[in-house]
């Protein structure tokens, strides 16, 4: 970088060069510093995966892929399989999405339109974001002591009149996959709402103006123009929410009922991978720890698949837009 100059430098030029060098080193230093931060995250992730994988090796070699299809979890004889947990994780997450996506998207649309003055919508938006700050153990306790008694008449009603649908075919108990799904919906609502709202708010104004100018009504504008335009942000928020729902631990362990069975009825207790790990890790024997970490690995892979799917969906729809 240094200039090859034949005439002797004047003091001013020397000053400039010193400053330029200083700035150059600062720039470079900052570059490497931020790069180190970014790499540290990636390295930590890889490290965690390797460490978990190493501890899980005894279980992986013993059970192999049969781990995913077996329904036995027997710490006494050290025979493990997590099909009921995989089922519970997916089903509770799907229930959560079915409830939270329409609700969250609705709230996001409402808050991003000018239906109400900002001094009303801002506190609402703020309150929804505060929801995300409630610790999950508090939500779990709230679920046990307030939500379950509150939902019981509703469950009884559903079972009595819709009991012919296998999904509601058993006598209701408080702790069930349905309860967990509803609580998870409550927990992921802030994620979906705030990200979708940000997306809708930050859309370029000419989209709305153009649609209006072409004679579209407000609903046509929202449904045909704004939501498709913000689709990638909305799907992104949903996938983030799905990841959160699948990985939720404490509330799941407190509300799902932790019974190691697959039942088509949503009113029966079930189990999720995260709740299994949370409840059994403390007292686990060594083989059991290996099996639990193998289960953790499976959960990570499930999340990875979800994220890849999200990427594919977003890419596909963006292409359609163009």
């Amino acid at each position, binding site marked *: 970088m240094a200039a090859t100059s034949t005439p002797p430098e004047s003091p001013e030029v020397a000053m400039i060069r010193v400053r330029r060098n200083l700035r150059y080193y600062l720039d470079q230093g900052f570059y490497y510093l931020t790069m180190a931060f970014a790499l540290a995250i990636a390295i930590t992730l890889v490290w965690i995966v390797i460490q978990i994988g190493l501890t899980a090796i005894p279980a992986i070699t013993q059970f192999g892929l049969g781990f995913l299809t077996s329904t036995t979890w*027997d710490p006494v004889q050290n025979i493990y399989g997590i099909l009921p947990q995989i089922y519970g994780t997916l089903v509770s997450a799907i229930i959560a999405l079915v409830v939270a996506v329409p609700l969250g998207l609705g709230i996001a649309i409402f808050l991003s339109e000018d239906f109400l003055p900002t001094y009303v919508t801002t506190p609402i938006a703020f309150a929804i974001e505060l929801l995300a700050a409630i610790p999950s153990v508090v939500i779990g306790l709230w679920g046990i*002591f307030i939500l379950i008694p509150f939902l019981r008449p509703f469950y009884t009603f559903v079972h009595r009149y819709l009991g012919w649908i296998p999904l509601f075919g058993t006598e209701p108990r*408080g702790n069930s996959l349905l309860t967990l799904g509803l609580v998870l919906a409550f927990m992921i609502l802030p994620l979906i709402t705030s990200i979708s709202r940000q997306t809708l708010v930050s859309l370029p104004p000419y989209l709305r103006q153009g649609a209006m100018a072409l004679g579209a009504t407000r609903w046509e504008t929202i449904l045909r123009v704004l939501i498709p335009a913000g689709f990638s942000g909305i799907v992104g928020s949903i996938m983030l929410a799905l990841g959160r729902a699948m990985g939720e631990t404490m509330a799941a*362990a407190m509300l799902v009922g932790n*019974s190691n069975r697959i039942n088509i009825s949503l009113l029966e207790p079930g189990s999720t991978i995260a709740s299994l790990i949370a*409840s059994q890790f*403390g*007292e686990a*024997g060594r083989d059991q720890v290996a099996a639990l970490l193998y289960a953790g690995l499976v959960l990570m892979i499930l999340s990875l698949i979800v994220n890849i799917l999200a990427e594919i969906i977003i890419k596909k729809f963006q292409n359609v837009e163009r």
Partner: protein
Amino acid sequence: MIFKLRKSRLITIISAIITASIVVACGPQGGGGSPTGQVISISGAGATFPAPLYQNWFKTYAQQVDPNVQISYQSVGSGAGLEQYINGTVDFGASDAPISGDRLKSFQERYNANPIQVPMAGGAVVFAYNLPGVDELKLPREVYCGIVTGKITRWNDPKLVAANPGKSLPDKPITFAHRSDGSGTTFIFVNHINTVCPDWPAGVGTSVNWPVGVGGQGNEGVAAQIQQNEGTIGYVEYAYAKLNNLPRALVENKSGNFIYPSPEAASKTFAGTTIPEDFALLVPDPENPEAFPIAGLTWILVYPEYEDAKKWEALKGVLLWALGDDGKKIAEQLDYVPMPPDIVDRVKVTLDKVKVKS
């Protein structure tokens, strides 16, 4: 645009205020009376079942006997406690199940000696239930075996009605609530069930593969299950059931008597038994006709040799004090079963065998 900016700034300010107030609220709680002299800090980890008792013991000891002995006990669970004990990251471990199997082997390999485990207290595990209008429910062996294996599913089962004449048992399904986390309470419970129920399929451990039922997280989770769902029966630690005023069932013991759970009835479980050299006493089905049948001990594990003589002297002092009269009083207040004098004498002899490096 300006409005948006102002709004976001408002949010920032509000959240900053909230954060600041939370930080202030959670800040250090001011210094208490700091002990004088050289503080000996001892750390232990393990079982959750005796954790309230241990914490009370250690706190009272620091307050009344020697403020320089500070013991921190983390109730991380028996399994995790034993791992930490084997790895040498604590000064003592605590467990509800005696050390055995590959853990015992790794301890022996690592320290070239046997672990020293001493019983500190006992406790009963009771059946608590929610059945409005039915007091003092009697559970014959056949019935509670049927409930935990899923063979008896309704409250008006003929066997249950026969054992409880004159009580109005409803035509409702029985929901069995068990612990979903690994627990010493579960160990004591299934240790009994495995002995008395011929068709129990799941064996003995701190967590097992339950044939039926709903799992609750911790004693509080099981208690909540019972309190909120009519027709639920489950097992919880005696002290916890008493604290929450859960109705407790009378359980049939080996002699055919129905015993209402109490610390006195549980202490009879251990009276008159011969205790093995390593104190690993399990009484899955006591002979005493007045004993409440579901009870177990909880152990503290110390190392055969300590580097720091002062630390060992302090720890030994605490353990002996806890087994003495003052400690006994606290145990009784908290509804644990204190150790009988003959066991305490043997514990003393055992603790004297611990060596210190000079």
